[in-house]
């Protein structure tokens, strides 16, 4: 019970500090160049590190197969996202395809 709140306040406080960081320190502190360069890769690296296991790992096992509905729907969603660049279309399309593949693959 207390652990829930500990997590919420720690994660919330640190997230807020991240958001405030450069806004508050502007003009007073210059971040090192390597740090600013590395920051650019944070969103693609972190988000991909979350996405791929969601598609490829099922019940603790790598499930690289044409019979994996999450993998098929995920790959389709990647193509939809690339073409449409639309968040809503990608989510709705991906979910519909997941249901379709789950239905077809039993």
């Amino acid at each position, binding site marked *: 019970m207390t652990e829930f709140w500990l997590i919420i306040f720690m994660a919330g406080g640190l997230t807020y500090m991240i958001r405030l960081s450069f806004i508050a320190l502007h003009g007073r502190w210059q971040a090192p160049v390597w740090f600013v360069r590395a920051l650019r890769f944070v969103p693609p690296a*972190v988000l991909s590190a979350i996405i791929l296991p969601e598609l490829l790992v099922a019940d603790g096992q790598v499930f690289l197969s044409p019979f994996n509905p999450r993998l098929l729907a995920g790959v389709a969603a990647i193509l939809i996202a690339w073409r449409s660049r639309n968040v809503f279309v990608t989510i709705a399309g991906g979910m519909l395809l997941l249901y379709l593949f789950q239905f077809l693959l039993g």
Partner: protein
Amino acid sequence: MSAWPVLGYLAVPAIKLQIEDCRALKRTQLLKGIQYTLPLLIGIAPFGMIYGVLAIKAGFPAGAAQAMSAIVFAGSSQFMIVNLVAGGSPWPVVVLTAVVVNLRHALYSASLAPYLKHLPASWKAVLAYVLVDEAYAVGIHHYEKNGLAGHPHWFLLGSGLAVWICWQASTALGIFLGAQIPAGWSLDFTLALTFIAIVVPALRERPLLVSAVTAGVTAVAAHALPYKLGLILAALAGIAAGLWSDRQ
């Protein structure tokens, strides 16, 4: 008698008019910020609902699940927190993972900082609080187009406010519906889909693609590490690969 009091009487209404003008402009900017953010709420509302549902399923008390939306106020990391808690990860791992997921906000902070430098500390504090993906995207576009003319911080505040209200309301709805949504609906898959929708269109340059692929493959290869530590390892590998590719 000097003429000054007369001039004073003339000047007062003019100043008053100016202040009212300014207020109207700020209100217009606030409403415009809300208006420009409305289309994005279509994506946020279901996301917030699903978060609420998953938080209850992971064992969070309703009050804590709602409080997290107000205190952390970052959808993707809230999903990760709920996911890790459900899987029994110890709290330091959960907090560290949330920080890694939200580190991208430092990028938003850095890119907005020059536009906000003239504002008082209280404004900076409030705007940092509402600096989520959607508000940033709408806000930075406005700043890049209009510069500092016409109180753009009210626009950014309006955008953040719209996201905030939508996020709290949809979380509450998800918590309320929590128990009624069956697991067979695979709603957790929306997490991967949302991230695909965010990251894929952004991979227009080779180093970014290299970074994403390296991180993804590392995460799958390291999936068996305890407490999803593979995620942190993969993020570091992806950042390193991106920097390396950038130098080529």
